[in-house]
């Protein structure tokens, strides 16, 4: 693949494995084994069976009629919100738990922002009877309380990250520290296309099912497997990478990623990484991140816990730099309004993360013949209290 990773784990200038020696054996074990494992017929069979019967895949590609009327194009929703556990995160969690078992690991750790990845990980650990510890920023535990309860019900231990901004970045730090301390028996299920190589590639491959299915579904519905536009929200960027993956080499398809602008890109309360960030190293890979002139990581802000992250995956950094994809952003307010619009026009309550992608439709111009796919990465049940508070229902 033209936009894929090279042998050293780089996407152009980005990627690599900037990790302390303590993590080297774990990362090396993964690097050497993950491709063989995920290509193995037995793995494929179990992965595909679980995606079908447990997750409920393929997720539908829904023609959103009222959205299409409003925006003057054919708008399709890729319904990852209908997956078991309510988001795309389960695709990767299933893939990685099967991988971890084949690596002989006995304990799973994960970080989570909105809690969707934590819930997905807790779910697959329950499914396989494996110990699960989820690190979550203290601030996120408050704003995503229902997901904390869900993880606990599923048997996971939820450990608050109390350092720094007490959000996703800090939860990731804590998970990495746990892994350093438990290098032999533990597998770290990273939830996004971030981290040291091979994580960004591995997670992208597990999430690539999204675009794989979309192509087939589009062919059925429109007579062509290629749309004019593909949209997705980006925090670390896993749903976007899954949604872009099989379209990357189809240069006619315009890829649009929407970051969280928070209160506005220039307010100092934002998580619009490509707009505000510079090249550097974060969580094990060379990428684009929000940082001070001295190279200290800036604490991001977004109303959406899942997008409240100061970096993006290295492949996104590459796609941004070479302009293969466009990186836009939407504010808290725009996202909340777009979320409400989606409820009222289509009867779908989207996750606030997803609502950022929907918000960008307002700023786009389409031809009536354009086919547009938006990844509805998650459902909004977890965000009800935020919506209710904002709109005063």
């Amino acid at each position: 693949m033209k936009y894929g990773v090279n042998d050293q784990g780089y996407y152009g200038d980005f990627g690599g494995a900037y990790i302390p020696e303590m993590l080297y054996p774990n990362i090396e074990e993964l690097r050497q084994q993950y491709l063989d494992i995920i290509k193995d017929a037995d793995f494929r069979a179990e992965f595909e069976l679980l995606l079908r019967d447990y997750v409920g895949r393929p997720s539908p590609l829904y023609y959103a009629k009222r959205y299409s009327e409003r925006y003057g194009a054919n708008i399709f929703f890729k319904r990852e919100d209908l997956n078991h556990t309510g988001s795309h995160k389960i695709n990767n969690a299933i893939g990685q738990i099967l991988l971890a078992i084949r690596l002989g690991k006995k304990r799973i750790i994960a970080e989570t922002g909105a809690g969707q990845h934590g819930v997905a990980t807790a779910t697959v650990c329950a499914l396989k009877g494996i110990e699960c510890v989820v690190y979550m920023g203290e601030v996120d535990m408050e704003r995503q309380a229902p997901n904390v309860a869900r993880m606990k019900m599923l048997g996971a231990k939820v450990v608050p990250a109390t350092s720094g901004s007490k959000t996703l970045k800090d939860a990731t730090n804590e998970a990495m520290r746990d892994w350093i301390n438990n290098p032999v028996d533990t597998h770290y299920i990273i939830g996004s296309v971030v981290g040291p190589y091979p994580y960004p590639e591995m997670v992208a491959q597990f999430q690539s099912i999204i675009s794989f299915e979309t192509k087939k579904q589009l062919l059925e519905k429109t007579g062509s497997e290629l749309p004019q536009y593909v949209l997705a929200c980006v925090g670390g960027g896993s749903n976007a990478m899954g949604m872009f993956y099989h379209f990357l080499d189809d240069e006619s398809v315009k890829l649009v990623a929407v970051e969280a602008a928070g209160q506005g890109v220039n307010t100092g309360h934002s998580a619009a990484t490509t707009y505000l960030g510079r090249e550097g190293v974060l969580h094990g890979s060379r990428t684009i991140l929000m940082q001070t002139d001295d190279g200290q990581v800036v604490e991001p802000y977004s109303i959406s816990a899942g997008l409240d992250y100061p970096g993006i995956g290295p492949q996104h950094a590459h796609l941004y730099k070479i302009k293969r994809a466009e990186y836009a952003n939407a504010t808290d307010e725009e996202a909340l309004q777009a979320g409400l619009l989606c409820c009222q026009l289509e009867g779908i309550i989207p996750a606030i993360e997803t609502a950022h992608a929907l918000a960008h439709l307002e700023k786009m111009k389409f031809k009536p013949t354009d086919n547009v796919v938006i990844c509805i990465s998650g459902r909004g049940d977890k965000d009800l209290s935020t919506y209710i508070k904002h709109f005063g229902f």
Partner: protein
Amino acid sequence: MNRLNKLFNSNKERLLSIYFTAGYPALNATVAIAEALEKAGVDFLEIGFPYSDPVADGPTIQHSSEVALQNGMNLNRLFEELKDIRQRVSIPILLMGYVNPMVQYGVESFCKKAAEVGVDGVIVPDLPMYEYEKLYAPAFKDNGLSNIFLVTPQTSADRIRKIDGLSSSFIYLLSSSSITGKNLEVSFAIEDYYKRIQSMQLHNPAIIGFGINNQQTFDKACEYAKGAIVGSAFVKFLGSENYLEKIPEFVRTIRA
């Protein structure tokens, strides 16, 4: 030959190194602490430059980094504080920190500046060998700086040989795979690992770090290595009153 090579080429055994975070507990404390440590008999120093997201560090060094950043410590400031350190401190000095602040400063400028103020080597836990060799090795070499690599109980023999080949003063042997500041339990497994390294007869001497916080752990490390490094225990100590006066006392609790 820099000061570090001279020290490691000498017959001196039971070397003691101390780590502390620049800017903690206060700005402008770096040189005074370094001077007091040299006077107390410490053999070489590791001065940490703080980073917002120190993933290899436990709560003690995390806290010191946070305070240091709040105090306004950064690389410019640190080099400013170290400007005249060689008039007051003669033991080898290493800088230790994470790669991102270094990359933002510019690795070449960083190495040049470090050499200028009299730094002898650098420890960057999250700078991988591949990237070091490919991108940064010339900058280190041109400025006479040693790059120190870490080895853990899980590091393979092949990789240890490779690290030995790239190292030019000592190898930093981690007592266990852990973040900093954990208590070290001296166990048979650890002794086996130390013996395994010893039997490899590497070109570079080993210094043991992580979990060294008292006389017992220091002595044990010195049975198998040329010396040991104390980090978190000293950083914790720096949180106490009148720490400068009490530094000799602290050093005696480690190496009697």
